[in-house]
């Protein structure tokens, strides 16, 4: 099974990379794009665990290392079939 973790800058944190990419996309003529925010995607392979154990391990990984709560926020999905 796999944990799919999405880490993004917090809403009140300026994301100059996202802003620059957003401007580039608009300059390319791709319409209807308001805001771009760029974060990280982490894929972790887990042994066969029950869902609760997988969620616990993933939360611990996020809170102790993968995410800096001062600047980032996260959410994850557990793919039990992967």
């Amino acid at each position, binding site marked *: 099974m796999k944990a799919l973790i999405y880490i993004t800058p917090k809403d009140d*944190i300026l994301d*100059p*990379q996202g802003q620059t990419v957003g401007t580039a996309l608009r300059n390319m003529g791709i319409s209807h794009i308001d805001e771009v925010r760029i974060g990280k995607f982490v894929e972790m392979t887990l042994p066969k665990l029950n869902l609760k154990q997988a969620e616990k391990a993933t939360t611990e990984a996020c809170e102790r290392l993968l995410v*800096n709560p*001062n*600047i980032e926020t996260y959410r994850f999905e557990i793919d039990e079939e992967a």
Partner: protein
Amino acid sequence: MRFAVIVFPGSNCDHDTYHVIKHILGEEAQFVWHRETSLSNYDVVVIPGGFAYGDYLRTGAIAALSPIMQAVKKFAAGGGLVLGVCNGFQILVEAGLLPGALVANQSLRFISRKIHLKPEDTGSSLTAGLKLDRIYTMPVAHQAGNYLIQAAELAQLEDNGQIAFRYATAGGKVSTGANPNGSVANIAGVLNREKNIMGMMPHPERASESVVGSVDGLEIFKSIAGQA
């Protein structure tokens, strides 16, 4: 005084720092590999700049978990003096020893140039030898030096005199134009609440001999060593 210069895989200012402490400042210096677990023989710990662990995940995040950082925490808790420069500042922040965070420069560019620093507090053993009415010139060289902290925490830093340095003009004016990286309130360096740990983005070890263009950085090492 005995200085420990911590070396991580990817440190690249360790030799400059060692050279300045030993040969210019004239104090004892030793390299300490990040796998070591004790700092009991030292008076000051310096975490130098570089790209520890290739800046993987976030700058300083992996280095903050190295065995030596447990020893740095213990050393600091016992009142030992700790200085983190550039990547060393990023490591101290990630280790939770200093408040706030350091994120990508507002320009998204690596910045390598001379800046001017205005000291904001001389009430610590690290900064006691500096002069509040003087400007210190030295280089910055970083990609992620944009200091960020929540408004409430920033107010606490201001109240407690934990802001060590701000970016200023050559004439000493703290202005947006003098801020190279977008740091909140022009902050270039901060202290912990107990004022025995200091992190700063500019490089005093690169401005400690006239041959490199400035000796202002040496004043910071002198202040730490109690020579000033």
